[in-house]
């Protein structure tokens, strides 16, 4: 975008700016243009909320931790594997 930026953006342009918007990486001028658009475009306002919520949901996903017995077994396996070889 030009140094002074456009005065308005389309939904497509607004969507492309969301990643930098949520991390505060947009210039003040572009942020103002985007926020003006978000203030009057219901589709984009909803899109932003669901985009943010998607990130939050992804970040809260839980994966299994490694069980203590598996840690012990893995260490034993590794000790056998590296047993004969000194570190290079």
């Amino acid at each position, binding site marked *: 975008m030009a140094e002074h930026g456009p005065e308005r953006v389309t939904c497509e342009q607004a969507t492309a700016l969301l990643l930098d918007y949520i991390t505060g990486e947009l210039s003040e001028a572009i942020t103002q243009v985007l926020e003006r658009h978000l203030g009057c475009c219901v589709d984009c306002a909803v899109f932003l909320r669901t985009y943010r919520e998607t990130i939050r949901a992804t970040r809260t*996903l839980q994966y299994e931790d490694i069980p203590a017995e598996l840690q012990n077994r893995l260490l034993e396996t590794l000790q056998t594997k590296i047993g004969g070889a000194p*570190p290079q």
Partner: protein
Amino acid sequence: MSEERSHSDPLSEATDRALMQRLQAGDRTAFDALFRQYVSKVFRQASHFLGNPAEAEEVVQEVFVTVYEKASTFRGEAAFTTWLYRLTANAALSRLRRRKRSREVAMEDYLPKFQPDGHHLVVRPIVDWSADVETRLAEAQMQQFLRQAIELLPPVDRAVLVLSDFEDLSNKDIGETLGLTVSAVKSRLHRARLFLRGQLAAALEPSATPERT
């Protein structure tokens, strides 16, 4: 299980460096200490990439064998954890790339659609499901749905998403880990998030089809 240390903690970095120096000198107890310290983190990171514990276990072995065998190449210029997590990311990504993708999903079907004038192409009334996610995510089925959606991402997009949203790495660090420019990282991250948003929309909007935003 030992407590994980923050990889930005200077004391931890000094301890790790000392352990690596001992390992370089042939002290195998240092290897055990490093393993105990970081096995959980490596396993979890590998699980995020691969989505199944059996493969994550194999990555753990591969990574720690590399730590042992390549100990002499660690110069301590970067933190040990940076090196370790890079080894993990690359080992997991290499497996992802070798995998036969069982289900091919057209990403475009789940990305937002726009009219020629740049406005959203939506079916009215637009549904705001953002308030439902937290409640629905409490259901194991929904968590599984989101995990499966992540598995549908192309390997590099998935790697970028994992390093950003699970490992909390900066775009610059992700780029260095995966050999991408920051701009490419941002582009892939945005696309991955848009795809997941589209998947969630399809699951949470009562009459949604993949074609709508």
